[in-house]
């Protein structure tokens, strides 16, 4: 009799504690497009991994919340955030004035820039060379490269592709003069296609990446900013760089191309 009563009480207490935990700290849903190594990618077993995933996990630990990674196409991330399907965007997203009109950004956590992956046979030497009739520029839909090309490179022919790999293929096959993307990806893609591409890694436009949040979500923004400051002070970014980007960091540093947390 007494044993049953004790067991019942324990069960109720556990349920209450679990409910309290659930109510108090719902999981943090983080949106990213898992096709951007080494920041957002999947390991051979299909689990999300990469710099942004580690960052998300660290934020989760800091806030005492579980982290759920939602794999969403890049140009669908902001709509997903706005409609409440995710709580934040950690997807190597550049904080631009246009985007800042509809969502909020945390303090920046990485500094990089737009660079060019040029076809080996193309005479292009700089971004300005692209703004000429007869030139073809490939961009990935929804990225800052896409924004830059459609507002600034008005004389060039614009190819808007879904996927980074398709855009690179356009350059490799000579269908496009250049692909506008961030300097790190340009470097990695050139390594994979050394004979058919030339990298112009010096950014012609500098950009910073930040965590995307809803405009009205001031609390979360403060928490994320606080986390980023602590994480940097703790050397967390240094560890991430060593784990995922050792070679690239060295390469870029040696050439004086900005790329750092």
């Amino acid at each position, binding site marked *: 009799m007494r044993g049953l009563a004790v067991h019942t009480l324990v069960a109720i207490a556990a349920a209450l504690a679990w409910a309290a935990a659930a109510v108090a700290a719902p999981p943090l849903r983080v949106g990213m497009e898992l096709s951007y190594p080494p920041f957002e990618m999947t390991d051979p077993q299909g689990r999300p991994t990469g710099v942004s995933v580690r960052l998300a996990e660290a934020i989760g630990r800091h806030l005492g919340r579980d982290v759920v990674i939602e794999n969403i196409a890049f*140009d669908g991330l*902001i*709509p997903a955030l*706005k*409609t*409440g399907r995710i709580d934040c965007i950690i997807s190597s997203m550049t904080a631009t004035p*246009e*985007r800042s*009109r*509809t*969502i909020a950004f945390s303090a920046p956590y990485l500094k990089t820039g737009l660079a060019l992956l040029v076809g080996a046979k193309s005479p292009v030497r700089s971004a300005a060379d692209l703004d000429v009739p007869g030139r073809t520029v*490939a961009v990935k*839909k*929804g990225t800052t490269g*896409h*924004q830059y090309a*459609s507002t600034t490179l008005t004389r060039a022919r614009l*190819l*808007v*592709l*879904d*996927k980074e790999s*398709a855009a690179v*293929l*356009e350059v490799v*096959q000579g*269908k496009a003069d250049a692909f506008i993307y961030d300097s790190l990806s340009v470097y990695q893609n050139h390594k994979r296609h050394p004979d058919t591409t030339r990298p112009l890694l010096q950014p012609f436009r500098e950009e910073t990446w930040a965590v995307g949040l809803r405009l009205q979500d001031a609390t979360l923004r403060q928490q994320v900013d606080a986390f980023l400051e602590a994480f940097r002070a703790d050397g967390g970014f240094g560890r991430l760089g060593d784990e995922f980007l050792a070679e690239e960091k060295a390469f870029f540093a040696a050439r004086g191309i900005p790329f750092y947390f």
Partner: protein
Amino acid sequence: MSRWLAHCIVVLVFVALIAAALTRIDSPWNWQGVWAYRAKFLQGFGVTLAVSAAALVASTVIGGTAALMLGSRHVLVEAVARVYVELIRGTPLLVQLLIGFYVVASAVGIQNRYVVGVLLLALFSGAYMAEIFRGGLAAIPQTQRDAARAIGLTPWQSLRLVILPQAVRLVLPAVAGQFVSLVKDSSLLSVIAVSEFTLAAQEVNSFTYSTLESYLPLAAGYLAITLPLSALSRWLERRFRYET
């Protein structure tokens, strides 16, 4: 209640349900942002219209030819058509577009992505058309072919005067359905950077972050093409109907 009235009521109820769902979404409407890009929408609409029309014609020709080849007694001819139909119907259009444009067309040397896109779309739809036509041809009683032969028609005359007129009436609904599918499938050409209607809406969405305001006009635009197609098909069916 008249049929027209019933249709209107159902559409209104549907629109009301959508509107009710929309009012529950928090973010404010931004129609001005999207309106600023109306030229882009119109251009994309034009491309979709042109590409669909060209692919429609081409796929009918391809499908008709393949259907005749499927019925051929020459083993090699039938084999070519059968392999074509099974391959195309068994693989996704997306895969066909990517391999067709980035591998095959590049190897052959055709650079124009609009031409390649129309061709690939026509080949895709043609395989489904072939099966539709083949079913229509098979549904005609053998005695019709016998009667045509008995009065001394050549095989070509039989096809033209007896078999095809009957087969066309039989397959008209299915063909119209395939045409509508083709128009919608043309949106997939965006993966090879053809600037069609859907890509235009996606681009506007990525500039203005106004998803619904970008995609509702997109849906309306497609309906503007597909509804008349369906209506035309129904009119043709009524006009050429004969009892059997």
